[in-house]
């Protein structure tokens, strides 16, 4: 599935490390006060541990668990 709109980032199939890379890449150059980015996570990704990995960046995204 493609990025459905400019505010959603698809991470289907990605384990936590490449998911974090993808989020960091998506946030690069994006205004800090922009509307939070929706991140569609792979069903195998654990939302709370991913939020811990993101640290402060977690405030700039909304982690959405994709249904399995």
């Amino acid at each position, binding site marked *: 599935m493609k990025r459905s709109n400019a505010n959603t980032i698809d991470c289907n199939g990605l*384990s936590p490390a490449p998911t974090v890379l993808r989020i960091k890449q998506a946030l690069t150059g994006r205004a800090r006060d922009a509307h939070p980015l929706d991140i569609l996570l792979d069903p195998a990704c654990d939302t709370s541990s991913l939020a811990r990995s993101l640290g402060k960046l977690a405030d700039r995204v909304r982690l959405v668990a994709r249904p399995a």
Partner: protein
Amino acid sequence: MFSVFEPEASSSGEPYVLTPEAPSFAFDPTDPWTETFQRGLEAANLSGKRIYEVGIGTGTNAAFLLQLCDAALVSGSDLDPRLIELAERNVRSLAPDKIDQFHPIKGAVSLIDTDAARAQIAQTDVVIGCLPQVGDPGDKRLSAFREAQAVELADGADEQADDHIAHYYPWEAFDSYPFNSVGLGLNEALLQRLREHAPKAEVIMNFGCRVGTGIIFELFEANGFRPEKLHSQIVRQDAGTDISFFVMLEKALTGTGLEKDFVCKFFKDAEGKQPISACEAQKLIDEDPETPLFHEVAVIRGIPAAS
């Protein structure tokens, strides 16, 4: 890479002299990547199959498949329109008896994005390809990401060689694909197109496994293919290819607790016994730009999971 054309392949008893014409804008057919790819293709048992090569380059694989693997038909295309013309000339001179079994798709074709390419793909059993797996060092968003990790581009990495598009792809253009995050966006785009236009076709792709084979297998699985490694070799890292791409991926994970989950795979030795990360590899190059570095190249077959 025609070293695999053994003398016994010639019915006259004479060794084949099968050196493809290879101008500077074409990927060098004597590169070990091509040798690895051909050994994998050999192991795939492609006799009687209809094959399509995405990114056909010099046509060395097309001639190889017709001449030595007994393929029923080989078709192919390339983003650089000069290459399909070159491939046709090379197949004509290297496999003259099989030229009727070669169907070039002319023009500039990105992946399979023309009507002619899609029509051919719909009648194909196996799609093969060895497509770039490193984002273009000149890509604007990738440059911003690199700067955010305080990683410098290697000297000269922003100069474009004649065969630039054989090594790098426009990273931002493929950012809708999740595996673009590790340089596999162009390859993922191909897998998704195949699921749509040739759902029964197998795929055989050649990968530089600097991001690890595990993640490449995940790419196949996420896109509906069951992966299987056909062949792999340790090859020398091309001195001209910029590895800062891999360094920035590792650095971006610093402080996330996931540092150990994604470590690039380079080797200090040609046997592949002394693994080092991209950061360690970069340090060695910084100390001595001539330091030889190695990595695995693997040929991976994907079988449609639904079949």
